[in-house]
């Protein structure tokens, strides 16, 4: 996230007095206090604009999230040509949606089939495809998941309620580089004739990380 190829202006503007803490009457402690001190220092030094921090937080809380990925999955389910493009070159196929520039983040889509289950982990930190899934949930970043998913994927899947038959192949993708992985889950039975929009509604984040499957509401798998 640190390699930017942008021109930017040199306009420093620190006129906005920043104080969000009116809404929080309880005293700050621990990391909250340390973070507040660091933010004040960085603002004082002209290194950050607190309004920019507001905008970044709002973006990841409200604008970027797994709905982005769900639309990609739904498109792949209804459009065989798109599915082929996604599996052959996910980076370019995902760029068709405009969430991310084609050159900005390299993506691979891996497809679940009746005989193959894929799941994604980052054992070294918590790499995750932000533009299509948003920020990762706490469990994905947890030491428990990072340590266990690679050695005991079937046990982890069981913790998510997924019993994997012995003859099914489980593939774990450890995001050790800058490549980001999206699991293309199986389309549930009983959704024939559904529109792309309807299908996007039932695709879950967990299915796109590979720890869940997509279920048809009201039954079926």
């Amino acid at each position, binding site marked *: 996230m640190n390699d930017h190829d942008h021109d930017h202006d040199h306009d420093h503007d620190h006129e906005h007095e920043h104080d969000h803490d009116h809404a929080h009457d309880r005293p700050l402690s621990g990391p909250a206090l340390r973070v507040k001190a660091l933010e004040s220092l960085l603002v004082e030094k002209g290194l950050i604009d607190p309004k920019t921090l507001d905008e970044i937080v709002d973006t990841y809380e409200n604008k970027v999230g797994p709905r982005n990925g769900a639309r990609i999955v739904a498109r792949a389910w209804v459009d065989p040509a798109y599915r082929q493009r996604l599996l052959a070159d996910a980076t370019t196929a995902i760029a068709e949606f405009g969430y991310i520039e084609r050159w900005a983040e390299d993506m691979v889509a891996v497809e679940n089939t009746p005989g193959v289950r894929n799941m994604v982990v980052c054992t070294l930190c918590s790499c995750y495809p932000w533009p299509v899934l948003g920020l990762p949930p706490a469990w994905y970043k947890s030491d428990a998941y990072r340590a266990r998913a690679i050695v005991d994927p079937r046990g982890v899947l069981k913790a998510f309620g997924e019993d994997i038959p012995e003859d099914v192949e489980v593939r774990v993708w*450890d995001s050790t580089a800058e490549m980001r992985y999206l699991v293309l889950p199986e389309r549930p039975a009983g959704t024939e004739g559904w529109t792309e929009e309807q299908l996007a509604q039932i695709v879950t984040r967990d299915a796109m990380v590979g720890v869940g499957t997509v279920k048809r509401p009201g039954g079926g798998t």
Partner: protein
Amino acid sequence: MNSIHDMGGMHGMGPLVIEHDEAVFHERWQGRVFAMRMACAFHRKWNADMGRYARERMPPAEFLAASYYERALYALERVLVENGLVGEDELAGGQATSTAKGAPTLKPEQVATIVRTRRRARLDDDVAPLFKVGDAVCACNIHPEGHTRLPRYARGRRGIIDRDHGVFAFADSNAMTRDKKPQHLYSVRFAATELWGSAVSPHDSAYLDLWDDHLEPA
């Protein structure tokens, strides 16, 4: 470096806690850390691999006791100081004693663009691959004190090149000396039994992204 961040395959990390409908940020300060990291990165004083290496240098006992965003805060403080944007004295005292010269500040209206264009690890350099799809390889048995993306659990293990991702900056050197050392990145398939022994399913496998410098012919 062989530290606690490299935790693939470790035991004793506790139960998997799965929340439902969880918030993106559980506490306000977590969002501020996340956003500060992105806004500070915009100054381009360090690369993402240097940021990763900073987090890995958190002493293991502290690392284990810290939450994800506390680890991120530690790393942010380190890269700010090590790259001259903040003085150690300023960090300790909370007061600016100098100005950071020539550092343009990320503006709110630039955020939407940053989110769509924030990373570029793929390089255009014309570098020949050392391996091709289907080749049998062995992950090097290396133990660098610096940053590496070759996890301990795969070192010395045999795998097969599954796909060639193309030419990428080599994170191991980029983190230490800013040398991008362009080379091919591959997805390498390792049988689960090769990594973990005969107790795991013979059907299962792990796929790791590794660079030419991590691999030897098997």
